[in-house]
Every structure is written in C-alpha cells, then in structure tokens.
C-alpha cells in the first residue's frame, strides 16, 4: 500500500504536467484564432470603407 502511493503520485504528476502543457498550447491556439478573427474583421472593415469611397 505504501509504495503504491508513491507510484501513483509519480505517474499522476507526470501526466498532470503533460496535460497542463498541452492545455496551455490549446489556450495559446485559441488566443491566436481570436486574433485572426480580429484581423479579418479589421481587413473587412477597411475594404468596406474603401469600397464606400
């Protein structure tokens, strides 16, 4: 029982670290996607304004 706790702690901490890292990458990707959407909106507004002229 005693050694199982150490084994469980080691494996779970390893997977938690890896999942946190993957999660941080997913979050970064979402942030970038939002920025792409904002850039697209800025470009579309700019084109619309140019067409209106």
């Amino acid at each position: 029982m005693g050694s199982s706790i150490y084994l469980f702690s080691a494996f779970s901490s390893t997977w938690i670290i890896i999942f946190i890292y993957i999660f941080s990458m997913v979050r970064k990707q979402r942030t970038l996607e939002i920025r792409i959407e904002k850039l697209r909106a800025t470009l579309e507004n700019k084109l619309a304004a140019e067409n209106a002229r």
Partner: protein
Amino acid sequence: MTSKRIFKLIFELATFAAMLAALYAIFLYAPVEKTMGLVQKIFYIHVPSAFLAFLGFFITFIASILYLYKRDHKWDVAAFCSAEIGVIFCTIVLITGPIWAKPIWNVWWTWDPRLTTTLILWFIYISYLMLRRSVKESQQGNFSAVFGIIGFVNVPITFLAIRLWRSIHPVLITSRGINISTPMKHTLALTFLAFCLLFFYLLKSRIKLEKMKMEIEMFSALIEENIHYQKN
C-alpha cells in the same frame, strides 16, 4: 485528406498506441523488483524523461548554433520550443526522482552530484525561457542562441556526474551494459519509444504554434502600418 494530414493522424495514433502499450508493459509485463518493490516502476518514466530533457536541450544547442550561423529565424523558433519541452521533461525528472527517493533513500532530496546538477540544469533553461521574454524582440534570437549554447555545457556534466563524483544515484548504463532483467529492458525500450513519439509530437505542435503567432504578429503590424499610413 491530404498526405500531410494522413501522416499527422498516423503519428498521433502511433503516439497514443505506444503510450497505451508502455503503460501495459509497465504495470502488467515488467516484473516487480525484489528489493524496491512497486516503487521501482517509477524508473520507467524517470529515465526516458531525463533522456528527453537532454535531447530537448541538445536540439536547442544545435538549433542555436544554426541560428547564429545561418541567421534563419526558424532555427531560433526550434531552439526555443525545444528548450520549453526540455524544461517540461526536466520538471518531470525533478518530481519523479524525489518521489522514488523518499521510500528508497528515506529522504525526498539530498545534495547528490546528479540531483544538484539536474536542478542547476533546470534553473539554466528556466532562465533561458525568462531571458527570451525579458529582452527586446530584435535581440531575442542572439541572446537566446548564446545562452542556449553556453547552457548546454551543463548537460554532459549532469550525465557524467555519477561517474565523475561519488554519488548514491543508481547507475543504469555500465561498461557491462544495462543492469536490468530482459523484461525490464523491453519495457524501458517501449517507454522510450512512447516518450520519444510524445516529445516529437509536442515539439512539432509547439513549433507550428510559434510560427502561427509570428505570422499573425507580422500581418497585424502590416495592417496597423497601412492604416496609420492612410490616416496620414
């Protein structure tokens, strides 16, 4: 589906399958060691993680040299991403090591040469990542490349620490080969394969993300410049 996507899918499935196979081998195939008991199984994640931390820092070292030589930004990105993943695996080493040490050595931490040099290595690459964030973008590549090259000096020191100085850390690779039984060797080989696939998957994804970020920053600067130019 393009061939690139098929390759990506195969790579992802292979990583997942190798991880499952490694877990099966660790818990159901590998025998329980006589003196250490179940705790010895921590070794199957500790050793590949240490190897991958070294590999990550080695890629940073090579990519830093290539960046200084070729002045191509892609090498700077590769060096940075590899250092980041190296730090992740080094963190795993520094966490799983003390968890193994407590029931075996009866202490969580001791200032043993291998443990101390690994901790120093971790601090060096944490500093590398912090340095990148603190310097100007124009200087980022040069500073980090120099740091990435100098910082690598500690990797062979860490690896050889158990041979150069008196250490209580177990020695896996000796002049007579690897000191473990055959099923343990198979399990270790499988865990190495699974962790290597995970490492390259993470590295590939991180590089892709960093390139995407750079492209967005470049486009956004161009658009802002264009808007500013038209206003004036």
